[in-house]
């Protein structure tokens, strides 16, 4: 579908968008009534648990579940032998593709285990404790193999090889021997050598980042029932009911029509609840014993068995003329994909220089498999790493050239028409506007004083993807409208989508009653990810509104006995030939004019555009301990039309604080055998309320030309800038350049001592 044209009535002042109604699911969520995955109950429910690998790399010689199966109260055991043999086939997950054979082996290991914590077998029993006890009776004979957990180590020729069927894809050409390097991406524009020759200053630096987790508070949980008629129903915590259905059906090799996925309320995802883990296993167990099976992970299982976001090694070189104009940019990025190919290196390469207009650039990216959990998307996947590297070098350039860091960014800022290094040309974007707003902000203009204090700035970019969304709505006789949409609601999108329908119909936000449908009750809708729901599912809601208005104009015409073309509808009032009727009045007459009015829409928009943000942070560094305290924080972002400003601010604040955690504390710590040493929230230290100040927000609204109300995606951009902004602030505070994440107290302390 081409870019959606603006409808005439969207040029009027908006009545619903930009207001702050209470979210429609709010009362359920503050009273404890909302049903999340773990709250699902049903008759004859049994509980499943997963046996996980104690080795980071080993061959499985045999698995013997017979003793576990004999334990009274155990209903079923499964291993990968119970799963169909899966061939190499790429399947679309909405935010990336996955090889089905690899996905299957990640769900239940086949032949080899490739990380500590990988699922090997599963048991269903009368209760979870018994299931856990039965796991201890499963005998697995492993032949341990040497593990590799560092991304550069894994790239070496003599590194332990994870897969004998992974060959480096070198710009579409397949190498002739197996490798841990699954893919080498190259993006190039202009002439990098010429650009470097033209530069007055060239700075090249190396960066490392640790593996971090999305850290959603709700562990993965799924309940599956393989019914006697062969139909599989799955109640689960997922970011995408339809992609969960597709993955499950393909892994079990059954038609999608035999799988229904019911998305429960979801306790956070951030990209980590797209891939399936428990769903197919629970289904297999249910098939074997005929009972519904509930499976939930412990927190340690979440850390060790689900997708974190990768660790990385990066080298970035920037060249600039005396006036600060960038002449050349080069990046060499190696991201670990975890145990199976298909990490987030692609977007990392696209994002590394995405904020700037650079005539000569080259990016080399490597997707590297190693013995860590298979990585997953995490809020702007791949972009935060790259921005940490690029934005730190930009700051160093600004310092070297004696130019204010925001001014330097302004001189190079990407604008409409700028071509990104991967070839994409920007439509109307608002990066310059965020920089100008940051520069003019009270925060940036106010002095910062005190010893060991510093202020840092950094910018960040993320795409908004479009993808497919469906919605349908029924007009009720009392003038309310029930809306069923396919996007699982992870942070208030029922409301941001409903508001766009209300705006279109000219009724109040409260008069639209939104609900998220399961895979049998709404049309195909892609995952809640890519900052797409308010944009794309909102667009579907808008088109549902147009459909309803067209039908209602016909009803009004039949009442007034006039030509439907003569009826106008604006702000919830229908008019023709001097007569008028409100939306409510007309709705009350539906039963006498032909019955219900049902609006529907399905979209696959291309006009998603891009989100840019600029963050300002003040820090204080304790020289003795290396502890960094955030004193003040301001996030500025071009959000397009802010549909519900409170939730837009909330996305910016939440993303910033996740970025602060990534910057200062969060990391997977592995021992030499590749075991994670800190799989608890005590030792994997996410920010608490006490660790951060209020997060100020400045919303810049540059309308998205590809959406009738100018909406852009908001959710992911805010996590991109924080680590670089904080690194730059630390430098201003104590004079050390931090080039490794997290910038935890020991690292900062060591850097200060080494100075």
């Amino acid at each position: 579908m081409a870019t959606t044209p603006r409808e005439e009535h969207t040029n009027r002042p908006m009545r619903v968008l930009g207001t702050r109604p209470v979210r429609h699911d709010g009362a359920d969520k503050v009273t404890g009534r909302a049903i999340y995955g773990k709250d699902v109950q049903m008759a004859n429910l049994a509980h499943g648990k997963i046996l996980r690998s104690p080795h980071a790399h080993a061959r499985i010689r045999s698995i013997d579940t017979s003793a576990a199966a004999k334990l009274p109260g155990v209903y079923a055991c499964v291993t990968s032998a119970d799963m169909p043999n899966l061939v190499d086939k790429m399947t679309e997950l909405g935010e990336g593709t996955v090889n089905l054979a690899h996905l299957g082996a990640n769900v239940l290991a086949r032949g080899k285990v490739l990380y500590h914590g990988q699922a090997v077998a599963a048991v269903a029993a009368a209760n979870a404790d018994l299931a856990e006890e039965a796991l201890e009776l499963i005998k697995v004979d492993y032949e341990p193999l040497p593990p590799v957990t560092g991304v550069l180590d894994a790239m070496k020729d003599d590194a332990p090889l994870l897969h004998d069927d992974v060959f480096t894809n070198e710009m579409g050409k397949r190498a002739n021997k197996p490798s841990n390097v699954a893919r080498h991406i190259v993006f190039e524009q202009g002439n990098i050598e010429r650009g470097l020759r033209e530069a007055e200053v060239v700075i090249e630096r190396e960066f490392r980042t640790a593996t971090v987790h999305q850290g959603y508070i709700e562990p993965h949980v799924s309940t599956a029932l393989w019914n006697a008629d062969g139909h599989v129903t799955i109640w689960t915590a997922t970011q995408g009911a339809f992609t969960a259905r597709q993955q499950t059906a393909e892994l079990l090799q059954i038609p999608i029509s035999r799988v229904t996925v019911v998305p429960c309320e979801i306790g956070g995802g951030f990209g980590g609840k797209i891939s399936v883990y428990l769903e197919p296993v629970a289904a297999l167990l249910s098939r074997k014993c005929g009972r519904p099976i509930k499976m939930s992970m412990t927190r340690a299982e979440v850390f060790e068995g689900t997708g974190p976001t990768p660790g990385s090694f990066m080298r970035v070189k920037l060249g600039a003329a005396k006036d600060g104009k960038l002449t050349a940019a080069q990046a060499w990025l190696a991201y670990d994909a975890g145990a199976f190919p298909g990490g987030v290196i692609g977007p990392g390469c696209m994002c590394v220089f995405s904020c700037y207009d650079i005539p000569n650039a080259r990016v080399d990216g490597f997707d590297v498999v190693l013995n860590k959990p298979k990585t997953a998307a995490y809020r702007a996947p791949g972009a935060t790493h790259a921005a940490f590297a690029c934005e730190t070098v930009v700051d160093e350039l600004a310092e070297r050239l004696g130019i204010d860091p925001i001014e330097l960014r302004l001189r190079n800022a990407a604008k409409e028409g700028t071509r990104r290094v991967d070839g994409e040309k920007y439509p109307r974007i608002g990066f310059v506007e965020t920089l100008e707003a940051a520069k003019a902000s009270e925060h940036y203009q106010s002095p910062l004083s005190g010893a060991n204090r510093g202020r840092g700035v950094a910018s960040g970019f993320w795409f908004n993807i479009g993808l497919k969304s469906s919605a349908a709505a029924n007009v009720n006789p009392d003038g309310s409208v029930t809306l069923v949409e396919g996007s699982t609601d992870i942070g208030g999108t029922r409301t941001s989508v409903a508001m766009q329908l209300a705006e279109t119909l000219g009724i109040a936000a409260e008069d639209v009653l939104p609900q998220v449908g399961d895979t049998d009750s709404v049309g195909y809708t892609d995952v809640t990810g890519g900052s797409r729901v308010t944009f794309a599912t909102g667009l579907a809601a808008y088109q549902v509104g147009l459909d309803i208005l067209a039908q209602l104009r016909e009803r009004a015409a039949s009442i007034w006995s006039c030509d439907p073309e003569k009826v106008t509808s604006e702000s919830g009032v229908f008019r023709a030939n001097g007569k008028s009727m409100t939306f409510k009045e007309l709705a009350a007459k539906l039963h006498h004019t032909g019955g219900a009015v049902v609006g529907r829409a399905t979209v696959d928009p291309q006009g998603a555009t891009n989100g840019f943000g600029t963050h300002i942070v003040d820090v204080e560094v304790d020289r003795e301990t290396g502890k960094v305290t955030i004193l003040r924080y301001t996030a500025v972002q071009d959000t397009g039309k802010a549909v519900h400003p409170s939730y837009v601010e909330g996305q910016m604040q939440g993303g910033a604080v996740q970025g602060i955690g990534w910057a200062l504390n969060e990391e997977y710590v592995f021992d030499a055998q590749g075991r994670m040493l800190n799989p608890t929230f005590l030792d994997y230290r996410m920010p608490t309320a006490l660790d951060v100040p209020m997060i100020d927000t400045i919303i810049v609204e540059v309308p998205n030309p590809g959406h009738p109300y100018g909406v852009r995606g908001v959710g992911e951009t805010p996590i991109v800038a924080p680590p670089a902004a904080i690194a730059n602030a630390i430098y201003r505070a104590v004079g050390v350049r931090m080039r490794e994440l997290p910038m935890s107290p020991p690292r900062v302390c060591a850097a200060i001592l080494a100075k």
Partner: protein
Amino acid sequence: MNFIPRLRERLYVAKKLHVTTTVNGEPAEFLCEARHSLMDALRDTLGLTGTKEGCNNGNCGACTVLLNGVPVDSCLVLAVEAEGAEITTVEGIANLGHLHPLQQCFLEGAALQCGICTPGFLVAAKALLDRCARPSEQEIRFQLSGNLCRCTGYDKIVRAVQEAANRLQEVKR
């Protein structure tokens, strides 16, 4: 079901214990095994699933309930410790269908996104406001530092608690 005695033996579990307690102002009783947590009893036995599990080891606060007015991680309290106690869960914060000012302020102030941590925050914040009418921002942050939220960045949660404190004061006046 002849496996049950053997099962109990295997799990070193004696017969179930009878616990009499008060939950959200109403008398309640349940049977539990000695090793079961209060969170298990509330969620699985009494069906009060508003109390959430995020880590089951006392680090996230999603399962916070009041035990005799004191906020505790119910995953770290044994169910038998509820004997004779007064327990308040998120289901007991609203009064006869009327939302508590904290609940109202969380909604109006958009202090939740995914909502999984919200019950724990509401209970912890209620404990604070029950004993301290005008907490400072720092006191609020300290009191809530046992509760993890991954969505909001805490800004709107802290503001919602401040606003609820103000409204409770206005009601008193």
